[in-house]
């Protein structure tokens, strides 16, 4: 949908799984949910997280696919694998830095979130973000997100791989990118990289 962006904010997630249930209602994969949902550590916390596909500008899954089965459309949406091409090898599952794609044995192919192509292509918001009661998943215009405590970013640093995504992550204000490697925070990070033992 023109002018709308997808935002994910795990700090708002209440673990209700509305998104998981609503995703099953999508026309392109009825009865199968593509949401990646987890209770992080239920024994220790009620924290939970629901993710959709991040729809990378340069999708690692597609780069790792030996049969060129994963395509990105002009709209920036990275589609599920093309059924005639997909050989179910799981390269994409292993390669995705976010852990999104899944192999569905009953369909013998990789399937994942296509940001409700059936809905967004006809001017409807994706099912998960529409129903999400805490708006941990939001599909709104950027001005609809500007008043939030947390601010959006779509730059992720996985070691030396920089990933820019279509979907935004809500992070504390003043954070430009999300890094998960301590090296990215170290002053001597570059030096350490050079100083690898021969």
């Amino acid at each position, binding site marked *: 949908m023109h002018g709308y962006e997808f935002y994910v904010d795990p700090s708002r997630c209440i673990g*209700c799984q509305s998104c998981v*249930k609503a995703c099953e*209602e999508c026309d392109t994969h009825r009865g199968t949910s593509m949401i990646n949902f987890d209770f992080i550590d239920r024994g*220790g916390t009620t924290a939970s997280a629901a993710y959709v596909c991040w729809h990378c500008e340069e999708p690692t899954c597609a780069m790792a696919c030996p049969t060129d089965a994963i395509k990105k459309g002009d709209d920036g949406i990275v589609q599920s694998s093309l059924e005639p091409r997909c050989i179910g090898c799981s390269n994409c599952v292993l390669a995705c830095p976010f852990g999104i794609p899944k192999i569905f044995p009953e369909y013998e192919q990789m399937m994942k979130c296509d940001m409700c192509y059936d809905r967004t292509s006809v001017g409807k918001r994706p099912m998960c973000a529409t*129903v999400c*009661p805490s708006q941990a998943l939001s599909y709104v215009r950027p001005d609809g997100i500007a008043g939030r405590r947390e601010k959006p970013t779509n730059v992720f640093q996985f070691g030396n791989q920089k990933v820019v995504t279509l979907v935004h992550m809500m992070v504390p204000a003043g954070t430009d990118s999300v890094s998960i490697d301590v090296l990215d925070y170290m002053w001597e990070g570059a030096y350490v990289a050079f100083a690898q033992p021969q």
Partner: protein
Amino acid sequence: MAEPPISLKSLLERFGPHPAYVPPGGWQDELRNAPERLVKTHCCFCGQQCGIQLKVRGNQVTGFEPWEEFPFNRGMLCPKGVKRYMQGGHPDRLHDPLIRTPQGFRVSSWDEALDFTARRLREIQETYGKDSVAIYGGASLISEKSYLLGKFARVALGTRHIDYNGRLCMVSAGAAYKLAFGVDRSPFPWSDIPKAQVVLVAGANVAECAPITTDYLWRCRDAGGKLIVVDPRMTPICRNADMYLPVRPGTDLALYMGLLHVILRDGLERRAFISTHTIGFEQVAESARAWDPRTVAEKTGVPPESIERAARLFARAERAIVLHARGVEHQSKGVENCSALINLCLATGNIGREGAGCAMITGQGNGQGGREHGQKCDQLPGQRSISDPEARAHTAKVWGVSPEDIPQAGYSAVEIMEAIHRGEIKALLSACFNPLVSLPDAKFTMEALEKLEFFGVVDFFMSETAHHSDVVLAGSLQEEEEGVGCTAEGRVIHIQKAVDPPGNAKGDSWIYCELAKRLGKEQYFPYASTRDIYDELREASRGGAADYFGITYEKIDKNMGIFWPCPSLDHPGTPRLFEDGRSFHPDGKHHFVVTEWRDSGDPVSPEFPIYLTTGRVVSQYLSGTQTRRIGGLLEQYPNPRLEIHPRLAERYKINDGDWVTVTTRRNEITLQAMVVKTIRPDTVFIPYHWPDGRSANRLTHRTLDPRSKIPEYKVSACQLRRADGPPDWALSSLEHPSESRNGKA
């Protein structure tokens, strides 16, 4: 008499619950057969009453589409809302009236079932008197049905005993609000929540029991608001709370007295507001004097510093809101708890202004509307008191009867079951109420049901309670009759009829009118449609606190709901109460109410040293009659689990997943442990949506709040023992979500 006619196994095989995982026709059916229309209506689960569009083809609800224009939820839905459409074509749905025989239930004609029901009710009333028959109603019924039930009890049967399952929900709040303000309604629209600077959430698991309200809390935080959460469990909203106060079960009153104590000690109260708009402050101030933070800390387990800080945070805010729910209401001092919270708001001048006030989060589907128009044992339509001569005269005129013919107040829900148990009430007609699962002390309920000389049920699925009935009248789902509901906000909404009841099932309102006809009272029930009933309800509510006179179906549609009171057709409704500074009391003042400490009715002791508290999970609704039949919801949380802190678990050598027997002074059940750090180590928690050996209400007790008559579900005393293995219920394969999702296309 009313023992189930055949074995439980045969009943479950025939009537379920059988979890349905796929929509009618299979997942791919919609791609071949597109829905013919979208019906803008509301979710049937919970008091938020979210707007939703149901997809309909022929006479079948086939799916849903979010309704983004409806202002309360703007398309948002919890998992129950997403899956609510799965009930319509459900294989367990009752399509015909059923009459019990020694061989089980047999299908009957409507004439036979209705004649039989009316004859038995009449015989029993002739033998034992009018009040030997009781009616149970449901708070999930549309307001037309609940109004009709109240009139049916009082006019067609002439019994004073009618009450409803809202008695198990929020009546403590209702009683406290009537005492303080003269009216039982949350005084502000939810759009006020993001405008508050501080929100105190007291005993409300918002994320799981009122999920859409979460977004309002998060928007409040986005605007810089602070969130204080009081709960024995760290519920999901606690993660983002600025303060979390881990109150010991049953001690909430002490905490709120402590907050008031600090506010008054430090002179943070609003004197001008108190003197202009309230009465009774001095007595309440006096009663708060004893509750210093140290004393409160010892009682509640909340640190004195937290009490000090929370009190200052709350009192210094220009606009503060209190939201409370079952945690404080389900106690033998439920009314006191609510009054103490209202006192906090009154002392700080937080009422009748944008972004300020005290509100209950009503729980059941039509929990607000269902209690306003006459299925409460002590109320007539429009929230009028049944003991008020003027109210009786008004209602009698609308009904075309004499005021003396209207019975006086009867027993409340639990008291009705107790009267059945002691043989005073001989017959029960129960509509959409599953007391065997939802009333406290289930063994007692079972004994009572078996003593009934006649038990009739109106329902759309065979509930566990209906197993004990003599006749089941196959009624209607919410989307099968047109009418109104009222949300937790006080917004009256329009429930659209999407489809007709399937097979030979009938609209509930038709059933009561046909029964009234057979009881010789046809002239008082001349309705051609629920719209006729609603027009009479509007007239009956006219001039009452809950005045619906100016609210029509068309006006609701045009305005996306109308907040009552709405006394005339050109009145816009009243989203926020008391803006003119006046309450609904004749003196116009807000009343401070003195609260008195009482111990729980089931105190912990050396033999029963652990607190047991019960509640809900996000994927189930009430006694589960509907939601245990929806596979997608059942698989999210298939069976009740015992939440227990690792420190307590260690003492009993319990590991995560172990089977644990929980025993109270009444009974025991065995269930699996879920070892979590998110609960106080002196407390365990069990959700209550399941029957039989999984029923938390086998453990709870029948102590009632003396004024609201709400049971004390939130505080019982229990002991724990690691069990050797799974109990019978876990070994039987019936009613378990199977690993393979049958029929998945």
